[in-house]
């Protein structure tokens, strides 16, 4: 028996050694490099020609908040996030609600609703640029033409070229892509609710509406939280979608795109690093509490 136990102990140490390469990789490439980026953000490496690199404290961060372009990109990102979150939540939830009881051909609907997740935005950008084209009336194509055809011609607009509405337009392809994913999460939520709950409420004479409102929806709040976190962190990082549709245009600038331009077009590493750290901070605020929550629930099981 003692022999088996010492064997197990040594196996556990052995286990550690098998994971060690990954631990080292994550330590260097995730945490080490984040620390390195943070360090750059505190220096004066504001162009490739800086000879003497020295620390300047939080100067780069302070300057960002008086940088008109940064404020603009941050504002755009928040606008985008708002529309994207609400739009995707609502549409994904409705899709799940419609499918939840099961309909003939459900598999087909589900498969089609999820296919956008398998395509890159660089590819879909080509077609969205067309669909969100600003030509109107006689010249209209894309969504403006669709709006005319269904008698909503007055809603025609400039989409992502409109200075005020650009980020709302940008949220459309994002909602299109992610709704199916949200649907899948909510479907899993709905179908994880034991039938007895529904049956019991029905026995008590509750109407279908009341069953949803008072029995099913409250059970979905953990799913709701998950969806918010997932969409939130994806939104903070939005990059491909913007590049794929409008490139580096000013009206649709967001933090990730601005960081790319600052870092690689004008090689201002310190500023690029500062923007990156701000995106990281925004993601961390959303994700870390969620990870702790997941960890806690797992320990309890």
């Amino acid at each position, binding site marked *: 028996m003692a022999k088996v136990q010492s064997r197990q102990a040594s196996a556990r140490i052995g286990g550690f050694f098998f994971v060690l390469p990954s631990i080292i990789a994550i330590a260097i490439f995730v*945490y080490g490099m984040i620390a390195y980026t943070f360090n750059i953000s505190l220096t004066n490496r504001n162009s490739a020609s800086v000879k003497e690199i020295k620390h300047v404290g939080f100067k780069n961060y302070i300057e960002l908040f008086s940088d008109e372009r940064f404020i603009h990109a941050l504002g755009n990102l928040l606008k985008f996030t708002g529309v994207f979150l609400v739009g995707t939540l609502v549409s994904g939830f409705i899709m799940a609600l419609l499918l*939840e*009881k099961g309909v003939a051909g459900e598999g087909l609907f589900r498969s089609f*609703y999820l296919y956008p997740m398998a395509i890159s935005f660089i590819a879909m950008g080509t077609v969205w640029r067309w669909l969100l084209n600003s030509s109107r009336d006689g010249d209209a194509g894309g969504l403006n033409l669709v709006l005319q055809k269904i008698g909503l011609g007055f809603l025609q607009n400039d989409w992502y070229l409109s200075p005020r509405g650009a980020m709302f337009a940008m949220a459309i392809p994002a909602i299109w892509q992610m709704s199916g994913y949200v649907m899948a999460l909510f479907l899993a939520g709905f179908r994880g609710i034991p039938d007895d709950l529904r049956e019991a409420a029905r026995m008590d004479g509750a109407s279908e509406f009341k069953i949803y409102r008072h029995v099913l929806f409250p059970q979905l709040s953990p799913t709701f939280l998950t969806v918010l976190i997932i969409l939130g962190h994806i939104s903070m*990082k939005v990059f491909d979608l913007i590049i794929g549709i409008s490139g580096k245009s000013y009206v649709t600038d967001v933090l990730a795109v601005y960081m790319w331009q600052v870092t690689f077009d004008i090689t201002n590493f310190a500023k690029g690093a500062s923007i990156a750290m701000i995106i*990281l901070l925004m993601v961390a605020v959303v994700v870390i509490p969620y990870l702790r929550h997941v960890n806690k629930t797992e320990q309890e099981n």
Partner: protein
Amino acid sequence: MSADIVDRVTHSTAPKKNRKKLSGVAQFWLIFRYISLTIILAMIILPIYVLVVNSFKGISGVYLNTAFELPKTLNFETWSAAWEWLAVPMGRTLFFVTQSSIISAMIGSINGYVLSKWRFAGSNAIFMLFLFGMFIPYQAIMIPLTQFNKAVGLTGSIYVLVLAHVVYGIPICTLIFRNYYASIPDEIIEAGRVDGASMVRIYRAIILPLSIPAFVVVLIWQFTSAWNDFLFAIFLTGGSPKLAVATTALNWLTGSSNQVYYGKNMTASLMASIPTLLVYMFLGRYFLRGLLSGSLKG
């Protein structure tokens, strides 16, 4: 343990209605649901429909105001033009994606095995630290990563992308395997142990043969995300045409200066999406599992 998450998505738990006649109200709602589902379906299909129909209209036959119309004749001009542009980048993408997916899957399998069946002190904390790596914005590591690549002489090689996708794929691959192995009963491991089998032997003889579904999930997940990746590709291979992959080549083609070649752009976009679409069509269930793992729910 609750039912498997993919099963929950794909199987209705609602009690089967006995085939009694539906009441008028119930009938109304059923019809309402089908109409709504079909309208949503049309909206979801619209973009890919536009790509498909316009890819057969030839180099100069594509116009904005007839974008929704079917082609009058099937013209394959743009397909050969797009192929000329994309064949090499797509081949290169396939080359690196295959390698990064296979390496990722092997690493994920070993990590997942240890972290689910041979936990050591602190293994849970390590796993959580791994998971955070899955959510970070890669901008936060991009500057040191390019410097690292330069220092080790990888700049200018397609292996910068293999490295990036393998390393930053560790969290999700570990997670998928760990969850999968958690569903294999500990008794199997225990039985092996009592028989005197070592950790490695149990892995090879018992765990690995059971792992095929998880390997499929991880392989297609890594394949799809690396194939569709633009961020690493644009940062790490820069503007080098010699290292163009599917997404960067496509972006150069469809970027603003090339707007005139609508037909070719549309076809190229469709062409670059075909590999991942095929994977989705034939292995959708595995793709869904990878997707749901990312939410830490399954």
